[in-house]
């Protein structure tokens, strides 16, 4: 028994789901004598629900994609095809409301699947919030808002820690001001300054009534849907960070000798994707080497190490057997 302690935390590799890829690699290390902990990870809310279900979480009879553990639930509102600028976040709130029929101590909702530009007003409305303007008509309907009542949604979430899932590069986006969502999105779409200023003003008024400073990092995440979660006392994070939190990965890494991950593509465009990027930060923080197998490897050793990955290896995830055999060198090198 070599005794090396390995944490395996994979993203999906091509068509192979994250937990399935993780199981193959975990078994390979076990067969080499290592002690292995397998952590389900998801790059997005949807991927996290899949990973948790593959790892044994209950699927239940929820009307929307949901995964439940004894302490947490993750719900992914169905993706909506609508113009973000005029869209409402109401369907995100509807999905969250449905999940709260059987709540958990931690309730996570993916904020990225419903493109909207209403500061989460629609989401708040679906949970029972009221105002002196319509909350489900997009930002335009918020014009002139002077009163907002969040008592009902706060009561609905009593005893729950609310978490909003956003993209890894979106966690610090402000809601208002020059770098806020209205300015950035409006200018990207070539909208008239008068419309941009009007949207910024409306969202700023909503944020003020909700007790959130729109200029600070965060409320602009997911097109402004982040404001709704912050207004209800929740926090924003990414799917990989939540995955790590649910599995108490920090505790495992404090005792681990090696962190292993895998992904579809590892290149200078994506740096392995959200899961690998998050794990690289954890690995550096804990002083544990991170090695990554990828279906497509296009980063050199020096570049990898500059981004927190000790070594990269090419994997063939066509089948479980090909994955296992292509990982043999990686396992042999990182077993001691």
């Amino acid at each position, binding site marked *: 028994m070599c005794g090396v302690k390995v944490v395996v935390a994979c993203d999906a590799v091509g068509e192979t789901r994250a937990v399935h890829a993780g199981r193959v690699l975990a078994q390979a290390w076990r067969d080499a004598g290592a002690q292995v902990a397998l952590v389900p990870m998801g790059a997005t809310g949807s991927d996290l629900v899949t990973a948790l279900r593959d790892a044994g979480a209950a699927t239940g009879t929820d009307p929307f994609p949901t995964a439940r553990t004894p302490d947490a639930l993750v719900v992914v509102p169905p993706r909506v095809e609508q113009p973000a600028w005029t869209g409402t976040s109401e369907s995100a709130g509807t999905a969250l409301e449905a999940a709260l029929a059987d709540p958990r101590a931690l309730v996570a909702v993916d904020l990225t699947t419903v493109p909207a530009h209403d500061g989460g007003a629609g989401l708040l409305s679906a949970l029972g919030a009221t105002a002196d303007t319509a909350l489900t008509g997009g930002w335009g309907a918020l014009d002139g808002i002077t009163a907002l009542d969040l008592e009902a949604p706060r009561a609905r979430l009593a005893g729950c820690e609310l978490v909003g899932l956003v993209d890894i590069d979106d966690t610090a986006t402000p809601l*208002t*001001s*020059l*770098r*806020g969502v209205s*300015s*950035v999105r409006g*200018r990207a779409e070539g909208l008239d*300054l*008068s419309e*941009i*200023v*009007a949207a*910024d*003003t409306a969202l700023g008024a909503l944020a003020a009534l909700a007790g959130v400073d729109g200029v600070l990092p965060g409320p602009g995440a997911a097109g402004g849907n982040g404001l709704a979660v912050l207004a209800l006392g929740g926090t924003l994070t990414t799917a990989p960070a939540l995955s790590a939190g649910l599995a108490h990965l920090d505790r495992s890494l404090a005792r681990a000798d090696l962190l292993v991950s895998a992904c579809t593509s590892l290149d200078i465009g994506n740096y392995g994707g959200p899961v690998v990027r998050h794990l690289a930060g954890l690995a550096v923080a804990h002083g544990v080497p991170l090695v990554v197998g990828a279906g497509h490897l296009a980063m050199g050793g020096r570049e990898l190490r500059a981004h927190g990955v000790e070594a990269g290896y090419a994997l063939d995830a066509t089948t479980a057997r090909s994955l296992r055999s292509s990982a043999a060198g990686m396992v042999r090198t990182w077993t001691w």
Partner: protein
Amino acid sequence: MTVEITQGVLLTDEATTKVKELLGEKDLWLRVAVQPGGCSGLRYQLYFDDRELDGDVVNEFDGVRVVTDRMSAPYLMGATIGFSDTIEAQGFTIDNPNATGSCACGDSFH
């Protein structure tokens, strides 16, 4: 000691004269805006506009109205728009005390 806090954008005499020349008889405002972008993070936009937007900061220089929108105003407090017509520089210039750096192309600042 009194400290004068300058609101909005300032226009030099040269720039005022040039704007009047360009405007002719048209009843327009000179709008100065900042937008995200460019290699240093922020870029200026100068154009003539016929609207006043909610929250605009307005200054007037010898009959020329200069207006800045609410989002751009914090980045332009005390910025001075000038006009040069020399062999080294031609056109409108912006001297912005808020800008901590700019890029080689001269097009953006941060």
